[in-house]
């Protein structure tokens, strides 16, 4: 990795980290709301979108474990699993992010 790219990559990784801080809060909030409803709600879609985005980028920034976990949440959101099960998995993902990234 060249010096210039290493520098850029460091800055991008910082951006990724900053985004993750926002995403864990969103995931926790959405999981709470999802668990409280029976409908096929907007929360479900938003959890899926966050998980999809995370699955696509976490590995790139050095967190392959988070890619796996996020991909699992995305898959659960795509199949018709129950809201409470998805909410629980989303919470686990959020906790995993906190642990791995040391928030």
């Amino acid at each position, binding site marked *: 990795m060249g010096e210039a790219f290493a520098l850029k990559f460091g800055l991008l990784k910082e951006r*990724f980290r900053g985004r993750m801080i926002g995403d864990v809060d969103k995931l926790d909030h959405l999981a709470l709301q999802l668990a409280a409803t029976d409908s096929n709600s907007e929360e479900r879609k938003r959890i899926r979108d966050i998980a999809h985005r995370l699955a696509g980028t976490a590995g790139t920034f050095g967190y392959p474990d988070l890619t796996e976990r996020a991909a699992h949440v995305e898959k659960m959101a795509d199949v018709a699993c129950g809201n409470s099960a998805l909410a629980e998995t989303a919470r686990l993902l959020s906790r995993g992010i906190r642990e791995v990234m040391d928030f």
Partner: protein
Amino acid sequence: MQSEQIRVAVIDDDPLFLDYVSELLGHQGGMRVTKATDGDQLFKELDKGYVECVLVDYNLGNENGFDVAERIKQRYDVPPPMVLLTGRGGERTVVKSFRLGLSDYVSKRNLNTSELVGAIRGAVDRHRQTISSRAELEFHKQQSAYDGSTGLYSASHIKKCVAKLTSATIAPKPFALIAIRMNGIARIEKTFGRLVADRALRAFGQRVQASTRAGDICGRIRDDAFVTILDTSAAPKSLSTVSDRLEKLKQHLSFETDFDTVTLQLSATLAVARYPEDGSNFDALLEHAAILTDTAAENQDKATAQPESHANCVGARPERRRNDRRHRVLKRGRIYVVGMNSVVDCTIRNLSEYGAMLRVNSFFVAPDTFELMVVGASGRQPVTTRWQTGLDFGVQFVNPGDGRTKLDG
């Protein structure tokens, strides 16, 4: 070739990943990168004409990578090669991407830099080779004395012949150029496919050839355009000779031809340009004739325009149609394409008072309206196409109630 800076456009709705891939391709791949977060931004860049490859993410939020790839293919005659970035690259996604003509795909998760750079470089190299081969083929076509599709003389050969005739400085010989435009080839290709269109073109070319006399030169100069050069210098009454030939040619080139299950009525629009009266070289003579054929074709289009009434009569009653008993017995049918004088054989199934399901044996894009006849039963009835899946399509009778009573005999 690889030492050149490849100009690549990346489209991804995640700005963070977009920035990452752009830096990666710029620094590690030595490429010039343009970024886009949606289709509109991408097309602004592509319209400039510099992009040699598009790296497209499958999941773009409001649209997906396949939609964008489709739009690129429709918008540009020579679209740049495309490489798909997939999150969860399932087998179906990969198969679909190749069917759509994408060059390669790379997994976005745990992205491998050398794999990504290699995929883009490979796609660009293959594309450049294809373009180069096409250019070479085109060059050979231009040089060839014969047209590959019809076996007649090629445009370049005709041009050379005319140049010879017009370059004579001492006592140039007069001649007549008959421009022949085969009617409706574009519509034939759109409706019946490339294979039928090519066969129609060959059949038409053979007719043109068969209508020549000793001393004539005939050839194909463009997709649907042919010419015949008549040496009029020896004919005592050249003007009437040309008119006679034109009339006979017109009759000879209006014919019916069968291709398996498709019957086409072919015809031509003709015009004459005389040397030296109407032009001093090939291009000028052709332009003179083209103006005349354009006018004649316009008049013909007006004369054969479809009545609008068919298209406006789509008043179905779905709930009644569902309850209606349908005949599952297969019948032989004939499809008459209005305005083209073409006939296609088909089998009819699920015939009801309101419509039927039809199946054809080869590629056929059902027009919005056409006429249907059950062989051995009755006359032609106007129908509208409601759906088409491959070789099967559903039609609705323009006048509901006419279906069984008239067609079923």
